[in-house]
């Protein structure tokens, strides 16, 4: 069976006037099957947001995609489509929910009208029918008293409610894939849980595939089918969620787990990963994690490790786990 979304050799770079260019996303490949929830995990600045924006081809001004990049949605390569063809994919097949519900809604438009806009973008419907649809969507995303909220302005709603409105907008044209970029980062912990439950619920009822972009491994556990771990513009590990949590293969993934407090272990001190994520302009050669890696060997500094099998349903890009020794 072909996957719903197939990304191969995704390269995103910012050409500079000097001729050189920074490459914040370097040769990223992954797939998302219909109805699957895939988590893309990484620290700030690792390229995960750009990866999400690249799917419906919404890269910021100045960013370009490499010539070998393939983004295949249901067999159609999106990199070969024109702007007007892409618009039939944006929202209709691939919808996005952004991080900040405070700024992602138009402050001067009633929320009902904003959701209706998302419907009108893809379907010819009468105003009355659109309003009916909006009310149904508001109910579906768990807004209490939708008939009074439909005419509210964004500033009259709480952060959690606004995020629900954004999700309703994303669902308006019945997409197959929802790209959720840090959908809960700006919210309180209790509201976070509600929004994640809503995503789980929608996924089950709508058979919606979700690419959940996050820096928080905690919200991935027990929710995602698969996890992609990204570091410095590359995917360093990809595994089924249970496998990743029980047997993390890449030293970076292991470092991430070691730096999270656990309830079931007597940890007195957390072990952070030394150093910080380098900027794209300063990315090291070879394995990009080697300057911060305790297991690094000489080979790591010069040769880029490929993503190879590291266990059942598990790939890791690390020379050491692939059996290389000094």
């Amino acid at each position, binding site marked *: 069976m072909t996957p719903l979304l197939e990304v191969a050799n995704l390269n995103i770079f910012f050409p500079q006037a000097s001729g050189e260019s920074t490459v914040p996303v370097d040769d990223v490949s992954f797939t998302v099957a219909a109805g699957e929830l895939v988590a893309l995990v990484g620290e700030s600045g690792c390229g995960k947001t750009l990866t999400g924006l690249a799917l419906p081809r919404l890269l910021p001004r100045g960013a370009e995609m490499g010539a070998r990049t393939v983004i295949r949605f249901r067999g159609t390569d999106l990199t070969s489509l024109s702007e007007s063809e892409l618009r039939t994919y*944006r929202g209709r097949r691939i919808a996005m929910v952004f991080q*900040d519900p405070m*700024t*992602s809604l138009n402050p001067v438009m009633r929320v009902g009208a904003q959701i209706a*806009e998302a419907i009108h973008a893809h379907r010819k419907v009468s105003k009355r029918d659109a309003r009916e649809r909006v009310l149904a969507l508001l109910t579906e995303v768990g807004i209490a008293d939708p008939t009074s909220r439909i005419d509210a302005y964004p500033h009259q709603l709480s952060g959690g409610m606004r995020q629900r409105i954004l999700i309703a907008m994303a669902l308006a*044209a019945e997409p197959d894939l929802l790209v959720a970029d840090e959908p809960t980062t700006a919210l309180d912990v209790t509201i976070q849980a509600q929004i994640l439950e809503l995503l789980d619920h929608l996924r089950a009822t709508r058979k919606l595939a979700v690419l959940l972009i996050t820096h928080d491994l905690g919200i991935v556990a027990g929710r995602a089918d698969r996890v992609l771990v990204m570091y410095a513009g590359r995917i360093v590990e990809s595994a089924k969620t249970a496998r990743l949590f029980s047997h993390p293969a890449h030293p970076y993934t292991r470092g991430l787990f070691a730096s999270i407090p656990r309830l079931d272990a007597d940890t007195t001190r957390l072990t952070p990963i030394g150093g910080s994520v380098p900027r794209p302009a300063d990315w090291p050669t070879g394995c990009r994690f080697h300057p911060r890696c305790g297991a690094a060997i000489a080979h790591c500094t010069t040769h880029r490790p490929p993503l190879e099998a590291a266990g059942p349903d598990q790939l890791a890009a690390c020379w050491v786990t692939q059996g290389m020794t000094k």
Partner: protein
Amino acid sequence: MKSQRGWGILLLGLLVLLAVIGPWVAPDWHAMSDALTDALLPPSRAHWFGTDQLRRDVFARLAYGARVSLVVATIAVTVAAILGTMIGLAAGTAVGWIGATVQRCINVGLALPRVIVLLVVLAAVGLLSPVALGIILGGTGWPAVARLVRGEALRLREAPFVVAAHALGATPGRVVWREILPGTMPAVLVATTLGLADAILLEAGLSFIGVGVKAPIPSWGGMILEAREQLTNAPWLLIAPCLALGLATSAATLLGEALRTSLQPDTR
């Protein structure tokens, strides 16, 4: 800030009141008294602001002049706001050479001295009705609005909610019309209110140098022009229109500043 808005609304309200009902309660503005002794009378119960050398009631002319002033200025700022918004939006949202070309046009418009352009145009077309004068004033006032709208559009097109609209498949035209245009309106409203003061002064200035509103239609600038010759024996002729002019521009400025502080959150 509240008092600023209060004063602005109060003064502008008084002015509108003067313009609307003034000509009804005062004697006819062009009615000349038959008695030759009625020329250049000082303020009295019968003639609140006195009479001029042609035996006309100054209050009536002032009230009718308020009407002219407000009509000209309102039309001017409305025309400037509409033209400026459309042109600024085009400059701020069109990509590639179209946007760049429109931006050049705005810069040329800003570089031209407005009064000189107006003098040339008005010299060519001759004296005009208040409505036509308003349209011509607006036709030279749009570049300032366009520059403002372009800046707002450049800011808004990178706003997360605009990116979100693109992500949902909205066409570029719809994004501009529904997401960007409404966001530029607060700035346009402020500029328009502040521009009202400019337009009132400009109309008075043009009428003062004799190229504005066609005489004998009373306008404050024209009244100041005529009063100049009677400065020593009938100063009320000069004081009345000058006071009106000062109050009108203060009212528009106060209201504009109050709007600015309440509509632009970063200055609140």
